[in-house]
């Protein structure tokens, strides 16, 4: 009940300001734009949406921090954290409400790319299960980055600092599993090290979902990253008051 109240407030706050609209428009524009330009969607003649989804982690590493950087930084700067802290609401309800609101904004952005799905279905007979699982994978990558940004946001009252730090972390999480980087890393160190580093990246989990495989281990990977970040957020917030 309280989670819902916090969720609705945060969601209204996103849509009361230009933030959500700007992010949604930028995401839709760039994800479709990149598919048709660098992804060469028309030339490859392939009905899979591989190149459409390929650019999502790259966009999320910038946009997910932008969506969620304000979540705690703003509360700390305005002092409203003191109101929340004295309301009969658990920290967990607040964390869940805020996380779900940011996730909803990203979900809206993601769902607004539906013309791509209509297009490939109109042109031929694509693997719609793989498309659905890719959408789920894409959403989970975004949720992971939102949770990480929330954790960073709990540390600071400065949104810019939060944005810079979270973008850096998310970029590392994208790059350390990106094939050209892992190849170089394996050459420079050992294949084992490169593999260990790549396991922190979102790529392998996302890649298996992109192929339409629902593997339990991928969901556990996403769930553990998200829950560790959210538990970390709660710990930081309590530690700051103690």
């Amino acid at each position, binding site marked *: 009940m309280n989670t819902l*109240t916090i969720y609705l407030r945060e969601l209204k706050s996103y849509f009361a*300001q230009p933030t959500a609209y700007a992010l949604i428009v930028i995401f839709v524009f760039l994800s479709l734009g990149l598919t048709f330009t660098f992804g060469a969607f028309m030339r490859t003649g392939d009905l899979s949406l591989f190149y459409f989804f390929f650019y999502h982690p790259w966009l999320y590493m910038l946009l997910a921090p932008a969506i969620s950087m304000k979540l705690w930084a703003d509360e700390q700067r305005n002092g409203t954290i003191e109101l929340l802290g004295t309301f009969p609401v658990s920290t967990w309800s607040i964390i869940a409400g805020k996380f779900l609101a940011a996730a909803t904004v990203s979900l809206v952005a993601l769902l607004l790319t539906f013309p791509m799905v209509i297009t490939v279905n109109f042109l031929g007979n694509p693997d719609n299960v793989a498309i659905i699982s890719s959408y789920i994978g894409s959403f989970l990558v975004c949720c992971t980055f939102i949770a990480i940004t929330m954790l960073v946001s709990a540390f600071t009252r400065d949104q810019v600092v939060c944005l810079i730090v979270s973008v850096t972390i998310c970029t590392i999480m994208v790059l350390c599993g990106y094939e050209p980087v892992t190849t170089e890393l394996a050459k420079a160190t050992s294949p084992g090290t490169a593999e260990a580093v790549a396991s922190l990246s979102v790529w392998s989990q996302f890649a298996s979902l992109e192929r339409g495989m629902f593997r339990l281990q991928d969901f556990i990977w996403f769930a553990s990253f998200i829950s560790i970040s959210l538990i970390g957020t709660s710990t930081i917030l309590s530690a700051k008051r103690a």
Partner: protein
Amino acid sequence: MIEVVNISKHFGTKLAVDNLSFTVKKGEVLGFLGPNGAGKSTTMRMVTGFLPPSSGDAKVCGISITENPYEAKTKIGYLPESAPLYNDMTVIGFLNFCANVRKLSGSAKNDAVEKAIETCFLTSVAHQSIDTLSKGYRHRTCLAQALLHDPEVLILDEPTDGLDPNQKYEVRQLIKRLGKDKAILFSTHILEEVEAACTRAVIVDRGRIVADGTPAELIAQAPNSSLTELFRKVTTTDTAA
């Protein structure tokens, strides 16, 4: 109604509140005086459950804020020092949100919001966005939030700060009126406010209580019968400390 027992708070090595104890009964308005940095806000933040005490406890209506924070918080209305608000909301939107958090719904919610708006004279700005409000209105919006659920205990951190003389008078009258059937703890550095609104006052300095009594008792103790003189005598100045 408010029972503070040997409460202390350390921030690192700094001792902000040192073994403070006091009680506020129903029908009592306790003025919490002290120089800046004396530990007034920290004490209030501990009583409201925002900061966990380093040691000691506070009970609100007999419920411990450390053991049962959820229940205790439902009994408290709190106005923080800087009157923080969500700038992207309207006054009525913000009060509706607070009412939802306080588990008010339906007509009870509407009545509570309407009453709080009336009590705090916010009718003219009810549908205005909070970031366009003047300081006085912002303060009163935050006060309205504290009164919304008709709490048994009110904790107000400098409720008249930043208000014009007319608004100050109104808020003092409001505190006096509400104090008849609630327990109110409010902090101030305006000494006239003590005589105008409090039934009892304590003066805090460097985390400790240095004077406690009804306004008349304090004035009787004071040199030249002046609260200002008493305040100056029992507290340390920044330059001396």
